[in-house]
């Protein structure tokens, strides 16, 4: 009874704040936490995770300046391989291409490194306008199903779309309201979702759109600092509340389905989480940065 009342109150306040809330039994259930690199070396402040349907999990072990590639199968992680490169000192946002190649944003080099699946450097991806050393570089990026790279470039105030060879495909200007855009995600249809944690808003642009339009606002009524966004290709968006240690689950229409997890130290709780990845099997991976681990969760619907 009491929880029902809280749900009604939460829904009421969210509606007042302009967020649609959908009563839906969807949540994340903790399954496993990954603490080391398979050789006993602890993870340190991991800030990125990439996953796919082929059971590959790549972790940006940011504090140790390396990537760790795992296979996650049958509820356990195996075949851990660490990837170290001179160009890789502060790996953060990481993604897997359709060919299992790795793309990783290094926040110190301020560029996206393109690696083979084994971790050899293939090249760098960026705007190519000026030397990377003189620019702040990309804020975040994502890949679509064709492996086109969508680069969030706050300095140029645009989302730049390039192919893996760096050839420019198109650009979409960021909304012109002086927003603080920290992350984006691209769905299977090429639609882009752009996140502004300061205002608590999500903008979207369809595959052919020339500009972004407001999808939803008022997220800060439900999250302290909604700093990261990802999708699962099945109609759900996941917003990582970096300061609140939680995840908001939204529909691609912006309606909030649930808030899951919470702040803390023990398994199933998060402290200053960063990137999140959800694969087609409903397996979710979160870089639980301040807890020095990656948490693996299961999407329950």
């Amino acid at each position, binding site marked *: 009874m009491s929880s029902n009342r809280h749900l009604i109150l939460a829904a009421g306040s969210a509606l007042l704040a302009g967020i649609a809330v959908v009563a839906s039994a969807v949540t994340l259930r903790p399954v496993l936490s990954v603490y080391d690199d398979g050789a006993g070396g602890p993870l340190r402040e991991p800030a990125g995770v990439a996953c796919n349907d082929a059971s590959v999990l790549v972790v940006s072990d940011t504090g140790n300046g390396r990537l760790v590639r795992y296979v996650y199968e049958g509820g356990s992680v195996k075949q851990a391989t660490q990837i170290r490169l001179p160009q890789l000192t502060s790996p953060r946002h990481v993604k897997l291409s359709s060919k299992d190649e790795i793309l990783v944003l290094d926040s*110190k080099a301020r560029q996206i490194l393109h690696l083979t699946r084994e971790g050899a450097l293939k090249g760098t991806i960026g705007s190519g306008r000026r030397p990377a050393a003189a620019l702040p570089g990309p804020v975040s990026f994502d890949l679509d199903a064709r492996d086109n790279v969508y680069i969030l470039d706050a300095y140029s*105030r645009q989302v730049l779309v390039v192919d893996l060879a760096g050839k420019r495909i198109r650009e979409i200007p960021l909304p012109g309201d002086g927003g603080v855009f920290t992350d984006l995600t691209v769905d299977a249809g090429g639609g882009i979702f752009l996140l502004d944690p300061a205002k608590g808003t999500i903008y979207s642009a369809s595959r052919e759109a020339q500009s972004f339009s407001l999808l939803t606002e008022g997220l800060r009524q439900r999250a302290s600092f909604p700093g990261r966004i990802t999708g699962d290709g099945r109609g759900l968006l996941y917003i990582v509340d970096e300061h609140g240690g939680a995840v908001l689950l939204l529909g691609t229409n912006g309606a909030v389905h649930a808030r899951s997890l919470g702040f803390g130290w023990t398994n199933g709780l998060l402290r200053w989480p960063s990137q999140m990845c959800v694969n087609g099997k409903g397996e979710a991976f979160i870089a639980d940065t301040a807890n020095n681990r990656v948490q693996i969760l299961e999407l329950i619907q």
Partner: protein
Amino acid sequence: MKGALVRTTARACFLGLVLILVLPARGQGQEDRRLKPGAKGQICLECHDAFQEKLARPFLHTPLKNRECSSCHNPHAASHGNLLAARPEQVCQRCHQDVAPETARSVHQPARDGQCMTCHDPHSSNDRFNLVKPASALCFDCHKDLAARVASAKFPHKPLQDGCATCHDPHASSGAARLLKREAPGLCLSCHSAATASFSRSHMGYPVAQSRCTDCHDAHGSSQKAMLFDNVHSPVAKRMCRQCHEEPTAANPLSIKKDALELCGTCHAATVADAFAKKSLHWPLADRKSCLSCHNPHAARQKPLIEGSMLETCGKCHSDTMRRQQSSLVKHVPATSGDCAACHEVHGSDNAFYLKGASNIELCGSCHNYQHHSSHPIGEKVIDPRNGNLTLDCLSCHRSHGSEYQYLAPYDHTKALCLQCHEQMAR
């Protein structure tokens, strides 16, 4: 029988007519007949002789002047203090309805809250508008920081000598923020003509008439010439506008010559290089506005040219942190005072949380020396029992931006906190 009925009906009609004619007349005359002369107010003063002093003041509230105490007070009994006929703000609103209209762009808090008597004496005053004190002194009773700044300013703004109401509406402003009668530059230009040669000369020939004057000038006075904010950017002080801006005769003279990051970096190369050498760049530096996201390039009240206080500037994005601090029962002084940079690297950091130094133990230890005499074991060798990948440090048990609980703890009492790790001690 029939005759008796007719007589009774006629008598009833006559009595009804008498009642209709007489009763209103009785009601109308009742008050005058029953109240003593001056009962609406004059008679009150026979007992309330302390009012002689109030009556001697030069500014009397109209009801008192007309000796109509009963305009506001109920002479017999009331549900409100001082026998007021209604709640104080409701009493005032009977005559003063439009003091703070709902459509106003900004409203003074006492006016919004119906606290009229914070500023006004409802009976009489030595000052106009029945103010409880001379206008400026009254404003400075609440706006103490501003009072201190005004008092220390070498170059005061003359209109302030005539009172704050020269520029501000004390109740509400329909068209401007901060209760201003008009927004800058319109308000400023009502006294300062932009058409004069001296105005143009002062601004190096740049067409600033449409710019917001208060971006550079402190309207309450300052210790800098021309009332620029107390911290002036060196090129502005040296009148070197062209170092950053196009020529005053250019098509867009107020445009800057390069992107902000590049432009600022020509002088502040070390600061930019230092930030770019870190593992994480603070988001504003990654944005097009870059340095201008947080700094005012001309002049500012805060060092180093911070736009507003750090609470305001950092709070533009980190409003959750500010809110947490404000609503916390136990507060952390650097966060309360807006000294975010006491603990955080604001441009870039090698620390994932932009903290200064490699360890929060060292950072906290720069103010708190508990770890030198009576601390729980902490440090690189002390494993956190909750998570084998963590070692114990100050943030294992404390929340640095305020907490609902004593000692900035994250849980409601010491037991709950300690039992996080010492489960075997639970009873």
